[in-house]
């Protein structure tokens, strides 16, 4: 594995995680969470865990994000923190 590439991915993961938690707009937070899941999926592909990465791409970046959006659509979209 190319470790600078890996290191960059790790940094991005942490940044997206913090961003998803701190965005006031819930719709935006859901999308950033989708990005986070997708970055995780890239990391796991690099670690030779293809089945897990496949599942995470389908579930984490796909369906989970859709669930978040569905909920964010039905409630007030502004969060206080």
């Amino acid at each position, binding site marked *: 594995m190319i470790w600078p590439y890996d290191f960059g991915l790790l940094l991005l993961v942490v940044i997206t995680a913090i961003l998803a938690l701190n965005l006031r707009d819930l719709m935006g937070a859901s999308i950033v969470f989708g990005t986070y899941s997708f970055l995780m999926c890239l990391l796991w592909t690099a670690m030779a865990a293809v*089945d897990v990465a*496949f*599942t995470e791409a*389908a579930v984490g970046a796909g*369906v989970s994000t859709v*669930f978040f*959006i*569905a909920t964010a*659509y*039905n409630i007030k979209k502004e969060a206080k923190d």
Partner: protein
Amino acid sequence: MKVLSLIIALVMGALLTVILDDLPAWGDAQSPANAHVSAYYLENAYKQTHVPNVVTAVLADYRGFDTMFETGVVFVAVIGIMAILRREGVPKGAKSRKRPPHQPPDPAITGVATRFIVPFMQIFGLYVIAHGHYSPGGGFQGGVILGASVILMAMTGELKSALNRMSEDWFIIMVGLGFLIFAGVGLACMFYGGNFLDYSALAPLFSGTPQEAAITARYHAMLWVEIGVGFTVMSSMFAIYTYLASDGWMDRGL
């Protein structure tokens, strides 16, 4: 609460940082986690099941019981969400005041694109389920893709158009049916005199010497199991989406 949560998180982080030195080095092929049980799987999975994708072999056979209850977890989620969220006895027109006004989606671009994409997605989903023995994938991933194709229809068009193709009756039946297929394969093994989920007991159904027949039986039973998982997961993903997106009213998607 904020300070408390920070303290708890920091304590947990400190505890884990302390033991970092004690963990085996990253990427060590000889560490206990990589040696004891997992080496056995890699060395014997093909011999015993003829499935080159070791992940599928272990998932559906060696630890098939876990996978059955993993299907069970999805099943529980559907039934639970239905029990909490589904609204009954409410006239169709009576919408809650708090919901944002519904804007029917403009089908000009998304609708046409969806019509193109959905068949390909579904074929890909079926391929992922069927080809899980040889490539990454299997019942769960394929099921999610199939479910996503139906969700896509519900998102771009009206929820009704998706529900016309897969009504509530159908997805409840399919959620139960998938789980029943998985557990039914296990029960069939008991019927033929083996332990629960011991697929090699199904050997009398297949031709060849007893040894070969047992391996073939494992191979085929795994496919059935994956199909069962696919059924449950596909319908459950759509079911959860339906209840969440329409807030239990079953009238519209996003």
